[in-house]
């Protein structure tokens, strides 16, 4: 390891590895494991403090409300946002993006367009596809190079005065590519196009400074950054926040209602209809606290390093094809073993306690473009080690032999 960061120490923070000491968990892009600190926060709340928020006058409820609201500030601080009131809680990246898409639906006129990239997760593709179809707008796609990078020279011509939004992923969940969102945002803003950044794979892995970047919307999920399932974040720039409308209607988002009409609260409360997932949000808060105990620089170095080493070793073997070869990348690698279906690779690795993912990783169009029906993906986190890479390469050699 080329730096001070010690994954073996970090590993102790995660109860799952006490229960499965041999587990090589390389499916972090799907969902990360959760540290003690996050689990304790949730179970403490459930056992000692559980109450719903925003409407109770008793101690449990007001305490819960205060802690729930405080997580907005924590999240804002993590991503360098203006303040806590730029942060809406959702059930995940998918919902965050759908909220924005649903709000932009009514802004689209026939002939308008929305620009996305060729390496988007389905969550950042299908919502745009649906609203474009419904409103007679078109979906334009930034192409991906063979190396797995965005063809940004095409951006100039793809965006025009009918472009209503640009939506792009910060880090590809298949190729690991770190896209130059700062440049993309500059170009979008030159053309007055608002931009949504899908940070599902970058939050908790890279330092994000949303205000410096200038992103108008940013979406991510707690469960991919050491937090619980069922909780996500939507950041909206204060300038754009008023253009967001509820996707769900119900209690808690209302200024006033009678049978004829309804007035809504302001962002972010207008987006949080229904009883809040208090445990989930507090768990997210604890995940943010945990991330802040790690040095962001070291985290991405470590994950980048693991990916680089894995690619090198895999390519040396001669029977492995790695998808793409982006210059800037995070800890995600997709590959195939020649002649063996990814499922059969994954099943084999599973028998060796190596958890990886096989399939299209919810990015079908990218795989089609890369000419693979499916692939195996390994994705790294702070608790993964170089030693685990070696064990994986060994297992891949066995796979090849098994299917020879």
């Amino acid at each position: 390891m080329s730096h001070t960061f010690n994954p073996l120490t970090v590993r102790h923070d995660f109860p799952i590895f006490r229960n499965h000491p041999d587990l090589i968990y390389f499916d972090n892009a799907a969902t990360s494991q959760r540290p003690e600190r996050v689990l304790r926060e949730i179970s403490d709340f459930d056992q000692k403090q559980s109450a719903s928020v925003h409407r109770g006058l008793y101690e449990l409820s007001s305490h819960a409300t205060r802690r729930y609201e405080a997580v907005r500030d924590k999240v804002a601080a993590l991503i360098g946002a203006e303040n806590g009131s730029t942060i809406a809680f959702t059930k995940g990246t998918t919902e965050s993006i759908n909220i924005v898409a649903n709000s932009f639906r009514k802004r689209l006129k026939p002939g308008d367009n929305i620009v996305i990239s060729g390496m988007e997760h389905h969550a950042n593709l299908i919502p745009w596809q649906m609203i474009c179809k419904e409103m007679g707008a078109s979906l334009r796609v930034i192409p991906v190079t063979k190396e797995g990078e965005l063809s940004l020279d095409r951006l100039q011509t793809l965006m025009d005065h009918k472009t209503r939004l640009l939506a792009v992923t910060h880090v590809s969940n298949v190729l690991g590519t770190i896209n130059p969102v700062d440049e993309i945002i500059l170009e979008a803003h030159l053309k007055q196009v608002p931009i949504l950044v899908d940070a599902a794979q970058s939050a908790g892995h890279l330092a994000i400074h949303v205000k410096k970047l200038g992103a108008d919307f940013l979406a991510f999920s707690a469960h991919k950054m050491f937090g619980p399932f069922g909780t996500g974040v939507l950041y909206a720039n204060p300038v754009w926040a008023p253009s967001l409308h509820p996707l769900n209607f119900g209690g808690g988002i209302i200024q006033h209602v009678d049978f004829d009409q309804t007035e809504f609260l302001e962002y972010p409360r207008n987006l949080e209809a229904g009883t809040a997932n208090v445990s989930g949000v507090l768990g997210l808060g604890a995940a943010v606290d945990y991330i802040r105990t790690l040095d962001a620089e070291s985290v991405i170095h470590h994950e980048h390093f693991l990916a680089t080493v894995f690619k090198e070793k895999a390519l040396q073997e001669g029977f492995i094809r790695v998808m793409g070869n982006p210059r800037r990348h995070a800890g995600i690698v997709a590959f195939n073993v020649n002649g063996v279906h990814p499922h059969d690779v994954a099943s084999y690795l599973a028998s060796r306690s190596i958890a990886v993912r096989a399939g299209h990783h919810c990015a079908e169009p990218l795989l089609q473009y890369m000419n693979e029906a499916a692939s195996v993906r390994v994705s790294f986190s702070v608790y993964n080690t170089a030693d685990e890479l070696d064990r994986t390469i060994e297992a891949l050699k066995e796979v090849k032999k098994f299917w020879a």
Partner: protein
Amino acid sequence: MNELDKLYPPTIREHNTSPFHFEQRKDRAVTVRAYNPICGDRFDLFIEADTGATNTIYFHGFGCAISKASASVMAKSLSGKARAEALRLCNNFLDSLDSDSDEALALPEEWKAFQAVREYPERRDCAALAWAEMKKYLESNPS
């Protein structure tokens, strides 16, 4: 009983029972609605221009002891004040509900009664209700 005496000191109880300028003045004044959707508290604030550059404030409506007393203290504090001065007072009052410092010592006697909500944040909105609406009004109508 201690805890409640703290949340509801005599000033609040008195203003709740005998509020200042508590009357319907819709026809003679600019009316501003102060409404808390969470609890249903709803007051109309009446801003009557005096012959000089000052206003007299009345209010009417329905709310808990804290929101009612707070509106009452507001009507008393702002009546006869010029708009700029009234706005300054709104800001001061609202700050006093949030600040953690001991600046409370310098507050007008009747304002101190609301200091307890700093320990009952679920009641902060009650204390702020009328003042926050008045502030918004004064900001968009500076003269």
